[in-house]
């Protein structure tokens, strides 16, 4: 069967139309980011005058000012510390609890699992108020640990759920063999189960890194000391204190965003499949 010329032309025009739509939307996605990058190399005087995408001169000094005088060096280090500790905490505590739910017997197991599902499904937009009061009462406001612990707790329900589902699906044989060899329960978890759980660990690490790095509301409520602030809070702090310093702010935005974009580009396959699985199966 031969396709008619008319049909060919029609489908060709169709393709072009679709491509035009897709390219326009892609441009709308990318241009604000590219212009931000470009503005971070302009001077404060030219930033609102010279709208060209490619700056005439590259003023790297914006980055130097942001990093030192703007304290973005401190903020960056803080964000790295918070993200690493929070994600490590979620992986360790979450995998242990997930392993217990999948493999170990203890009274109250079903209830614990029920609580977990409930916290994932019930939105509590006001809980942040009580959390804030609690941290004040415990003298944990304006401390690193007071910021880290609630964030670990926030990531746990989904992580425990993911680990539980994963551990239930791997065969028990290896663990049984290790038990016969005299391995302790904790030893089996650490030496047998965890090495097999690498795909689940990867998903938990990637998603919680994004969440921890982008967190703002708790940092806004409880961190007042400049030396403790992560990048998102630092950005708002800088913006509030130097309203007109757009070029330095743009450098700060790029410093804040680059780690996320790099992580995203490296892991985009996992991120996109993870987000769809999370939304459609959860």
């Amino acid at each position, binding site marked *: 069967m031969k396709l008619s010329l008319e049909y060919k032309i029609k489908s060709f025009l169709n*393709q072009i139309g*679709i*491509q035009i*739509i*897709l390219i326009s*939307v*892609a441009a709308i*996605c990318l241009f*604000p980011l590219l*212009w*931000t990058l470009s*503005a971070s190399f302009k001077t404060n005087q030219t930033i*609102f005058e010279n*709208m060209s995408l490619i700056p005439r001169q590259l003023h790297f000094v914006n980055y130097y000012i942001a990093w030192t005088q703007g304290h973005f060096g401190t903020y960056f280090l803080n964000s790295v510390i918070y993200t690493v500790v929070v994600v490590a905490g979620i992986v360790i*505590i*979450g995998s*242990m*609890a997930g*392993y*217990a739910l999948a493999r170990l017997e*203890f009274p109250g197991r079903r209830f614990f699992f029920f*609580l977990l599902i409930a916290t994932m499904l*019930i*939105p*509590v*937009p*006001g*809980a*942040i*108020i*009580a*959390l*804030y*009061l*609690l941290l*004040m009462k415990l003298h944990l406001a304006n401390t690193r640990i007071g910021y880290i612990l*609630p964030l670990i*707790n*926030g990531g*746990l329900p989904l992580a425990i759920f993911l680990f539980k589902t994963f551990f239930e699906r791997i065969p028990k044989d290896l663990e049984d063999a290790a038990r016969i060899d005299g391995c302790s*329960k904790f030893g089996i978890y650490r030496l047998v189960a965890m090495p097999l759980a690498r795909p689940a660990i990867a998903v938990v690490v990637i998603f919680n890194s*994004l969440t921890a790095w*982008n967190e*703002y*509301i708790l940092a*806004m409520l409880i961190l007042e000391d400049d030396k403790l602030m992560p990048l*998102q809070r630092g*950005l708002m702090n800088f*913006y509030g204190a130097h309203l007109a310093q757009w070029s330095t*702010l743009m450098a700060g*935005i790029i410093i*804040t*965003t680059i780690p*996320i974009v790099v992580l*995203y580009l490296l892991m*985009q396959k996992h991120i*996109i499949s993870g987000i*769809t699985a999370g*939304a*459609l199966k959860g």
Partner: protein
Amino acid sequence: MNNCKLKSTLSNYLFILPALVLFLVFSIYPFVSMIRLSFFSWTGIGVFKRFVGLWNYKDTLFNNPIWWQSLRHAAYITFLALTVQNGLALILALACDRDIKGGKFYRVVFYLPPVLSGIVVGLIWTWIFDNYGLFNHFLNLVGFSPLTRAWLARPGSALSSVAVIHMWKGFGWGFVIMLAGLQSIPRSLYEAARVDGANSWHVFRKVTFPLMIPVFVVVVILTILGTMQIFDIIVATTGGGPGYHTEVPITRIISNILNNQRFGYACSQGIFFGLILLFFSLIQIKISRKFKPHF
């Protein structure tokens, strides 16, 4: 022997102990104390709390036009997100579902804004929507100079501008989920419909649409839950202003504790708002049980 079994059970508890402690301290306790506090009037400092019964709720519901306004603002942004943002996401997903050149590239680009933080996105767009910013510059270039204005600072345009920013950040998320839904539909169904002489519109209505309903439900509910709780973008763009023109529920709650020191009042608002969201959350649970996803 019994002793040994008890010991084994206790050691099993050690596995969930850290999670349980964190959970009790940072989820359960705040939840319970929030409910309790909503019946008190308290400034947050000192031990003195005055029991006021349901007064906080009554005042929020019947005597607080700004609170209702903030809910309407969030509902307005949510409505735009449900129609414009998700409509665009669906069109793009349908376009990318075919064998299209650069399909992978588009997927990566469209999902880039959703991974950025609300603060970063808000600040970038504050600069774009500035009176001297990129958007007005663009309007001048294409000859629409009468339209230029300080988009985020004018009462008439602030809320819609915030909605545009929110949709820019969010449409890629809906796109990715709907594309995954479309791709899970077996191609043979399309071919069968074609053989029966159906045109594109018929195929969409009779094959694609019914199979996509569970996916639509998930996208709709998660859009509602996410957009109603919008906060970071507001903080980084308008801070709720000008006046109260972009106030949303979370900014009201936060402002009641940080600026007004009305902790009990803020808790009652949090619970009331939580109940509204719970309603949508329950619909999702109910519907997702009815439609077992076929992925």
